[in-house]
Structure formats: C-alpha cells, structure tokens
C-alpha cells in the first residue's frame, strides 16, 4: 500500500485508510470495528487484499520456529568452571538443613506460646519496664566512660595539677585555680537555669578553675552575670559528668567548701 503513492483522490484516501488499518491489525491494536472494516476492504479492494496477504505471509515467516542447537551443556560447563555448582548431595543437605531450621523455629515458637499461655509470668517476650533509677545508673556508667574524654577536652593530663596557680578570691579563702583562656571552653560553659547565658568573652567571666580526678571533672568560674560575682559550679552542666562523678565530686565539694566559706556556691 505504501508503494501505491501515485494514487490520487478517492483511491489515495482509501489507500491511506487501508494502510492505517493494516498497520493497526499487524500492530495488534485494531479494534473490533476496525477488523470489520479491514475485512470489507480486503474483500473489496484487490490491492488491499494483496497487501494483507503479503504482510501476513511475511509476519508468519518471522514466526517460523528456528531449529536451535542445545547449548546447555557448553553453557553450564563454562559457568561451572567460573562459579561452580552445588552437588546434588550438598543441595539435598541444604534443603534438609533449611527444613530442619524452619521446623526448629516453628517448634520453639509453638512451645513458647504454649508456655506463655499456661504460665504467663514464666515467659516474657518484651523486656520489663526499667525503673528510672536504673536508667540513672546506666547514665552514670556511660558518663564514667566519658570522664577520660572530658579530661582531655579540658586540658587535663597526669601532670596538670602541678600547673595550677593559687588564686585568692575576693574576700574569701584560697582555692586551687588557674586563670584560663575561657574561649577554649566556650562550648562547655552553660549557664545554670535562671542566669544569663555565659559567654567566654563576657565581661563577667573572670576565671575558671578546672580540676579533675580519676572519675570526675569539675569546672568553676567566677562570673558577675548574676551581679554577685560568686563562683558558680557548672559541673552539673558539663554533660552528664555530675552523675558519674557524684561520689567523688561530693567528697571534694565537701572538703573544699570548708576552705571556701565566703565564696561558696558549690
């Protein structure tokens, strides 16, 4: 039909219509009404009939089966050389093993459900609720692990204590302290609730005392943020150290509070 491009007028229109119908038919997109139209056209128009039969023959020719050699032995041999196949015995073992594992799992689940039904307290599928005290203990343990990191973060080492200066507080006792570059501790300094945020470059920050034991870290600084120019203990604010170092801190705090009656705040 495409070859009949020289047609004009009604014949040309009919040829275009036949082409589209033939294309739809062989594209497998023709509708029932289109099939009826095509059948009428093929019966009435010898050219359309010839085109249909020729196309049909060509398409059928394409569908003619081709006798293919059997490549399976060569292919499987080559694949076997590259990656190997499991032997029949191993495959059986794998299958039996899978079945056995599945059976054991199912049996275990069944037994668990049965025991749970007859004795609900003896089988617990979900962990019991943890008291908050236990959570705190866990936090303390975690914090213990972090003490070493905090010591490093605050610049302590084993010889750090000898570097300390003795600084006299205004009108108060003497404590072990050291004037610091507080900017290095900016991230750690958090004001206690109710006070303005402590900035390392604030006017009121005078000095900071860092001290640490084997299992605790303490940070003190004198600030005038609250107008009283008294030292604040920010130990509680430095991560969770307070929890971990509570016993040691408490001991130290008690001991030092005797020496620092006027400064206080610990």
């Amino acid at each position, binding site marked *: 039909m495409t070859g009949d491009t020289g047609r004009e007028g009604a014949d040309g229109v009919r040829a275009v219509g036949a082409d589209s119908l033939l294309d739809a038919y062989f594209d497998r997109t023709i509708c029932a009404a289109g099939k009826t139209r095509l059948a009428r056209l093929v019966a009435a128009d010898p050219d359309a009939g010839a*085109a249909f039969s020729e196309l049909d023959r*060509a398409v059928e020719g394409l*569908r003619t089966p081709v006798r*293919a050699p059997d490549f*399976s032995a060569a*292919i*499987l041999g080559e*694949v076997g050389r590259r990656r190997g196949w499991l032997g029949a015995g*191993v495959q059986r073992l794998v299958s039996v093993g899978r079945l056995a594992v599945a059976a054991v799992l199912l049996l275990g689940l069944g037994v668990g459900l049965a025991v749970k039904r007859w004795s609900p307290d003896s089988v617990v599928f979900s962990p019991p609720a943890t008291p908050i005290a236990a959570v705190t203990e866990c936090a303390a343990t975690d914090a213990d692990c972090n003490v070493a990191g905090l010591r490093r973060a605050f610049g302590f080492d084993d010889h750090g204590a000898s570097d300390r200066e003795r600084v006299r507080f205004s009108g108060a006792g003497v404590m072990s302290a050291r004037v610091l570059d507080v900017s290095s501790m900016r991230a750690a300094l958090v004001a206690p609730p109710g006070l303005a945020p402590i900035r390392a470059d604030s006017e009121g920050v005078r000095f900071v005392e860092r001290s640490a034991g084997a299992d605790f870290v303490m940070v003190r600084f004198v600030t005038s943020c609250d107008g009283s120019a008294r030292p604040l203990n920010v130990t509680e604010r430095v991560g969770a150290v307070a929890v971990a170092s509570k016993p040691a801190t408490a001991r130290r705090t008690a001991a030092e509070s005797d020496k620092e009656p006027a400064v206080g705040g610990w």
Partner: protein
Amino acid sequence: MTRSAEQRLIEKAAAGDRAAAERLVREHQGSLYAYMLRLSGRADVAEDVVQDAFVRVLTHLDRFDPRYRFSTWLFTIAKRLYVNACQKHKPRYDSEIVGAWAGTDEGGERDGGRAAAAAINGEVRLNAGEAIDKALESLTEVQREVVLLFHQQGWSIALIAAHLEMPEGTVKSHLHRGRQRLRRAINACERSRSAVDEVWS
C-alpha cells in the same frame, strides 16, 4: 512458565542449583538463538552470542532485578554482546544494500525493491525460511531488531521502546517501515524465484 516459577528457578540457580540453571537455559535458548540468528544473519555469531549471554547471566544471577522479565535482561545482554561481535567480524548483511534501502524510505521504494532483488540474484531455489532471511537483509539494523522483537518474540511496543530506549512512536515507525520493506523484499524474492523457474522449465 509463569514468572513466579521462573523466579524460583532463578533463585535456585543463583544458589548453585545446576538443574535449575539448565531449565532456564532450555527455556530461553531457542528464542534467543532464533532472534540472534535472524538479527545477525550468521549462525556462528548467533551461537557465540547466545552462549556468552547465558554464561554472563548465569554467573551474575545475583544482580537480576526481579521487577523485570528475565528474557528482557537476557536479550539486553545478548544485544550488547552482538554489538561487540559486530565490531570484531562483520555480519553477513551487506551494509551497502541496507544503505541503499535506507535511502529509499520516502521516495525510492521501487529502487529498494530492485536492490533487494539484486541481493538475492543468483540464489536458485529458496525455501520460505531462507526467503525471510534474505528479506531481513533489506532492513536496517534497527528495523530488523524492532520487527523481530515484535513479530518473532511477541514483545509489546512499550517493552521494545524500553529495551531500545526510544519513544514508542519511533518504535512504531520503524516497525511499519520494516514490515513494508520485508513484504516488498519477499515479493521480489518470489518474482526472482518465478523467473528462475521459467528459465529451468
């Protein structure tokens, strides 16, 4: 074979089951070989490509995406191998004849018919399968591929478009033109056969 059954076979073959792999090969080797034979026009190329494609697929079954058809994956790999093979040894199809046909799509259809007739000149008696093979020579590479995938393998237009990474409209266009060329080439082949018959009689 249903897709779920095929998927189970693939899983078994991937786990090292030789029998499952063999079933996969036997299931698809015929269609792939027929496709490659008619695409390349050379049995040796088709055999090499089919074997290489299966070896690659079976050694990389873990990469198979079950969302797609196994045959689509297999044919894609085979096509890449065929392209590589074409670069090594020229397929049987004469590119000059294909080029002559390619230049006659719009106006010179009858010249194309003569070119196809010339291509088969010298052949004495051709059976139907050989006539089809000869006629396929007159198609361009992409027309041949589309026509084979659609009519021989029964793929949908959408699947072919995805496989060849071209719009569905382009696939249809290649399909229509390829079919018309095929028809004319078969006619030319038969005319030639009739002429030979007359001479012999």
